[in-house]
């Protein structure tokens, strides 16, 4: 009995190796390790709180001195004006900016990207601690917190959910469907009709875009997020081009696999690296530098800026065009594979 179980287990392992499940098992820990390495690397410089100050603002000399002394905690950047500092924050180069408060004389307003973030809490806590050491009183230098993104926490999550939906359809749903049609020879059957290869490919991409659209619409109906007209159209424009790009990539992934099982594995191998660096970029400055190199970022970054910072599609022409271009290249490659009856 044990012998038979061993034989069957070995057979299952061989199947897992053949359909690439083992790669997935090895890939996920490797990917998590690399991600953690990037997020929590040994370079403590990346862990410092990057705080921006105005060159001509009347900060108490003791405060500046104390911030400079605490150089293992704070890194100070100086700006000629508030706008430059806000741009620095929006680029995610810094964590927060202290400017004189209009509401309380002698105290400061802390400008951050989002009010409810780990960085904001860290700045408030650290500045208060510095002040207690220096002045021994509890009244904080920080009188108010001004977030650049006014939206609610749910709204701040929206870009990540949208990215997840787009990637889910692109890398999990479509590759499995394409591989199924190949595996069951359904695609070859369809190619015995007068359809063009490109028509079949575009139908698959349209399916992906439709599914993404339905999911986004459903999400919108349930959560009832508010957009103005410009924001709404800009969001729609990126959803369309993102849906096009990742559906086309999904079809290509499907073409690289012979079976549904391989397509699922390969889909996850593409899904995770596209999702995590973009979605986690806000938590790590290192990831923030890596994320733009990944094709999902030209979708995630602009979508986030449109939804949370009031940007519009005309602010991101390069990203829009690059997503469209990636989609076109993916369709072209799928077309080549289809013409060669690759793994069919």
């Amino acid at each position, binding site marked *: 009995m044990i012998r038979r179980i061993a034989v069957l287990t070995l057979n299952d392992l061989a199947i897992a190796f053949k359909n690439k499940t083992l790669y997935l098992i090895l890939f996920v820990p490797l990917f998590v390790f690399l991600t953690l390495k990037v997020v929590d690397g040994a370079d403590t410089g990346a862990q410092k709180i990057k705080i921006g100050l105005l060159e001509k603002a009347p900060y108490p000399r003791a405060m500046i001195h104390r911030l400079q002394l605490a150089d293992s905690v704070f890194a100070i950047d100086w700006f000629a004006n508030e706008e430059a500092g806000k741009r620095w924050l929006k680029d995610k180069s810094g964590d927060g900016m202290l400017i004189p408060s209009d509401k309380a004389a002698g105290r400061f307003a802390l400008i951050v990207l989002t009010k409810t973030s780990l960085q904001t809490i860290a700045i408030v806590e650290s500045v208060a601690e510095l002040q207690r050491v220096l002045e021994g009183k509890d009244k904080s230098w920080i009188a108010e917190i001004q977030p650049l993104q006014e939206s609610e926490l749910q709204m701040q999550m929206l870009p990540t959910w949208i990215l997840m939906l787009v990637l889910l359809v692109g890398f999990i749903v479509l590759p499995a469907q394409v591989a199924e049609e190949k595996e*069951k*020879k*359904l695609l*070859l*059957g*369809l*190619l*015995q*009709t*007068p*359809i*063009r290869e490109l028509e079949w490919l575009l139908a698959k991409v349209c399916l992906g875009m439709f599914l993404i659209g339905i999911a986004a619409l459903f999400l919108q109906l349930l959560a009832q997020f508010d957009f103005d007209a410009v924001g709404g159209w800009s969001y729609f424009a990126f959803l369309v081009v993102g849906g096009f790009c990742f559906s086309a990539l999904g079809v290509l992934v499907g073409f690289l696999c012979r079976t549904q099982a391989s397509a699922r594995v390969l889909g996850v191998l593409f899904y995770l690296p596209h999702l995590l660096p973009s979605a986690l970029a806000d938590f790590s400055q290192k990831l923030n530098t890596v994320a733009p190199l990944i094709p999902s970022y030209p979708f995630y970054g602009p979508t986030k800026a449109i939804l949370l910072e009031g940007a519009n599609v005309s602010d991101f022409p390069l990203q829009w065009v690059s997503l469209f271009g990636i989609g076109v290249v993916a369709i072209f490659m799928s077309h080549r594979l289809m013409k*060669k*009856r690759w793994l*069919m």
Partner: protein
Amino acid sequence: MQLEVLQLSKVYKEKRGLQATRFSVEKGELIAVVGHNGAGKSTLFKMLAGWLIPDHGTVRVDGIDLNNRRTLVAKIGFVPETPNLFDFFSVEYNLALFARLFQVPSARVEETLSEFNLVPFRHAKVQELSKGLKQRVSIGRSLLADPPLLLFDEPTSGLDFEMTKEIYVLLRKIHASGKTILFTSHRPEEIKSLATRIMVLHQGALVFDGTPVDYFKSDIHQNLYS
């Protein structure tokens, strides 16, 4: 000449497949392509149907090159060994889908359902049908666009005696309607009375091409099947 196969070849990594093969087919022939498993029968049919891209050679149907796939699909109907139908949809849906893609009138679906005795199963999902019924649906689908040339790859594979007889009756009926038919089999005895011509493939090479009478007189049959 309806079909011309000129130096067609396809070799797989394991050196199997089809070596350069040349033959032609006249209109109205009913040809059985026989040979053992791995002889190259399916490879030949898959290339004729556009499922496989040949390494070398060309195929012409009524003078049209195989590269013109979209024109040729109306001239060649292919019934694969395992029916490649959308299992989770009904018989009628499968036929209607292909009728739409071929842009033939929807009345053709009704005709096909009646012609192949599929009316009682029109709403049944394909996955619920027996292999014989699936094969009938598959044959019906291949005839939707009324192609003059039909390829059947092992049409009786996995079918019982009764079903096999039924399929052969169907082949005769289709042939009698003026179609040219090529079908594969690895059971020559069964096709003795059916084919007008027999082609034998052995290890990827065409080793016999003649009438059934000549074939059964020759020692090739004895050598291959004794």
